[in-house]
């Protein structure tokens, strides 16, 4: 595997994990082999996360769509108390509100990357932040494949900055999902994200080799 493929690999993990925290569609997830792909991609990055992705697949096969929808709503949507608030500011600012200063910082990252949020959600929604990391990885992979090394370095630095500054809340979020989920699927998804986060953290803090 060359450098660009390795980076894209990681990017695809971010992307598929982003999908896991959107509204669930059991049939579509299975048809598109979401968990299989995730497990495959994660094997080299984080075997522990890969194992959780395998578990996700098993649970997905036996969990009814309605149960998934209910659990997803109760965890991340409401309408009453949110079990696991999916917005970064609530964790980073300890103020239980959305659209905090950290949310604006997140939005500024997107703006600087030439992006905006097209959905009616605060910009620091877990799925959007994961999608942004996918975007940065994909762009880095493109740059690498085209030999644009300066650009690749810039994008890599941006990933590290965003990941370490804006996504530090993920372990706490994963813990709330694990503790509050009604389905094993979301418990496994939280485990998968948590382990993947830990492996990325090593990469972005320079404690692991960036290929």
């Amino acid at each position, binding site marked *: 595997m060359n450098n660009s493929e390795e980076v*894209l690999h990681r990017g*695809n993990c971010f*992307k*598929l994990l*982003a*999908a896991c*925290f*959107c*509204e669930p*569609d059991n049939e*579509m*997830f299975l048809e*598109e082999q*979401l968990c299989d*792909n995730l497990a495959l991609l994660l094997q080299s990055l984080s075997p522990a996360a890969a194992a959780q992705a395998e578990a996700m697949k098993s649970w997905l096969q036996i969990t009814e769509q309605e149960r998934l929808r*209910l659990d997803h*709503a109760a965890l991340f*949507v*409401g*309408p*009453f*108390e*949110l079990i696991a608030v999916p*917005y970064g500011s*609530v964790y980073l600012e300890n103020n*239980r*509100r*959305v*659209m*905090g200063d950290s*949310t*604006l*910082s997140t*939005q*500024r990252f*997107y*703006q600087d990357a*030439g*992006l*905006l*949020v*097209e*959905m*009616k*959600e605060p910009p620091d*929604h877990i*799925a*959007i932040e994961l*999608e*942004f990391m996918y*975007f940065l990885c*994909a*762009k880095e*992979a*493109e*740059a690498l*494949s*085209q030999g*644009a090394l300066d*650009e690749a370095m810039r994008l890599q630095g941006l990933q590290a900055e965003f990941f370490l500054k804006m996504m530090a809340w993920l372990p706490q979020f994963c813990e709330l999902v694990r503790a509050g989920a009604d389905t094993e699927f979301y418990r496994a998804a939280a485990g998968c994200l948590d382990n993947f986060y830990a492996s990325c953290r090593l990469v972005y803090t320079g404690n692991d080799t960036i290929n």
Partner: protein
Amino acid sequence: MKIKRRDFLKLSAIAGATAALEGAQSHLGMNALAASSKSDKKIGEGPGEWKPTTCQGCTTWCPAEVFVQDGRAVKVRGNRYSKQNDGKVCPRGHLSLQQVYDPDRLKVPMKRTNPKKGRGVDPKFVPITWDEAFNTIADKMMELRKNEEPEKFCLMRGRYTYMRDIIYDVLPKIFGTPNNISHSSTCAEAEKFGSYYTEGLWDYRDYDISNSKYILIWGCDPVASNRMVPATIKRLGDALDRATVAAVDPRLTTSAAKANEWLPLIPGTDGALALAIAHVILTDGAWNREFVGDFIDRFNRFKAGKTVNEKDFVEKETHGLVKWWNLAVKDMTAAKAAAICGVPAEQILRVARGLAKSAPHVAVWMGPGAAMQARGAYSAMAVHALAGLLGSVDNVGGSLQAAKIPVNKMDDDILKKHQDDLAKKHTKLEKIDQRGRLELPVLASGKSGGGVSTNNVPTGILNKDPYELKVVVGYMNNFVFSSNGTDRWEKALSSVPFTVHLTTNASEFTMFADIVLPCAVSKYERYGFVKTKANRYATCTLLQPVVDPIWDVIQDESEFPFLLAEKFKERGFPNLYDCLVEMYSDPETGAAPKDSKEFTVFALKYYTQPLWDGKKDTHGDKINGWKDMLEKGMWNSEAYKYKAHWGGKFGTVTKKFEFYSETLKKALTGHAEKHKVDVDTVMAKINYTARGELAFVPHHEPSMRHGSEKDFPLLFVDYKSRLNREGRSQNSPWYYEFKHVDPGDIGGQDTVRIHPADAAKYGVKDGDKIKLTSMGGSGECFVRVWEGVRPGTVSKSYGQGHWAYGRTATGDFAGSATRGVNNNTIIPWELERLSGSNARNGGHAAVRIEKI
């Protein structure tokens, strides 16, 4: 958050050499993120701007401005053009920032998947599309029309703007139901009763405290709640340098803490105290002669216990003073009243004489505490009658009516044109709250059944009387929390087959809903307009979306009916759509609205047009067109002209200020005749003790009590915190952090205040957790031992005790556990039947406390 396209689940490969590094990212298969056009405005670097809107945190309805940076609301102040609040807001204005950015807000339309309804039963809501939501609602409603029973649809309205006509009038009337139920009788209809049956004003009064020499605050706390909060905060300090301030309330309110006199009366004895003050003024010969008149020979015949000949007195701007004296006042000496109301006779004398000395520049500020009682209609009249006696009605420093606000009204002709025969027939049926029945006169504006009795709706629903309700839509309301007798609402709503809740936050009402629709937060995300008054100025102030809503929400009063009308049209019933489009096309161009958002703006333009189109003198601010109206965000009237209703221009039957209310006599007689009984029978049926002529004058009624003194020895005093944005701010962390701004309260807890003598008597100490129990229900909270509450009573702020709300407000949603106890569970269900009001004050709620 949805996955917009299946591609998002596919693995991305390295893009080919042709893929651009910049620009559109379509080849990356993005979901929530998209390429943006280059912008010079970098987030975090812009200066921000103040944008006008309106705060509806309480009933002041303040013209406000919100500072917006990078599309985010950051801080709040009063509107710079306001002649009421002078650019200031109260704490509620700031607290609202935590409401608009509350992570627990409703984010998407949702439907119930658990058919079982009840307290503690998880509805198991799941997200649905707007289309599914509106299709379901339209199908359910059209089924009623198909079965020729449109009256079984009921629209319930909580807080509103004046865009309410669209959802509250046009929708139900075109659909064919008489059931548009407002929350008004939860607020203070009994208060309006007091001013209507004396001076013909069915409304709240303005108080000219900038010019008062004596301010008698009665049953409210105007620096904390009520209807002109920032204006009062601004002025009460100055007033204390110039005027005497006295506060009548069983608890030491924020205003009382600053006042010269605190009169901690026994709850429910307001009528006796007011009559005693009148007695002192009359026997002292100290009434205002310019307004009231005098004895022909100027010799004062008002002597304690002595009847006076009516012919000896000639009135000027008033009617029936001597009759009132003879029927209700003559025996109510200060000493007698002291025995009834627990306020020392010498204090009654001192306050009465102070008032008389300062008359007519006296504000007798009557609030809901004096009126919203099971027998509170006459005490409301009695308190307001003092303003008449002192000549301060419509006078400098007194109680004022308001200048006119020239806005357009809903066009009845267009409405009628689009009503079909089914709608015309069924809108005339009896309403679900049973207003106008013998035992429920609801004499708003002089008519039997002329107002609303919100808290009697559960009676109608539970008994299916006059009929069953099958579809309920509630907006910006939470009656199951905000109305006393919460258990009745829980049972009633559990029995309704299909309920829709339009709201910003899921609440107790939502627990009984089948579909819940996310709505824009008032003040930040929606259009609307309200009318308000303070400091002699009437104001029309706009609500505007100063920020883009974070989540996909609609504006309840305008978009809901428009989107529903489109669905009705698809189902072969175009009347509502046609009516809305005809009534609310763009008043400038005549263009029909393209969608619900444009419809909303056109409707706002239609209503406010006379203020900004320059065609007629508005007798107020000059506004140069629609753009200017949006930029200023408000309009001020000219200052209210004193004595505008003197000279026989009051809205009563006699056109005078009535101490003997011919207006009430006419209304009560009309109601009695409608039911073929006499007025005494009416009085007996509605739990009042007055018989004969006493029913037509302000008088003292013994208070009602639910529960024996032995089992429930303490009287419960409900009040509104200065942090209450009605019942909606309890999910804001700041509410708990700053709750100590209420006198005697501390932060982070739901507390009940008890006098040290009572604390010793019942064996509780400061900080103890207790169980509070009444005939209505029970719950847990903490004791705060405090001298600022009358012995024999306990006081507690309304607001906490949610069992279904967001994470901060609710103890444990899964367990249906509350954080504190809802006052409306403690206050047993009861009505003030003359006005239809919820009875929540006056001591009918008797309680006991037990240490846990």
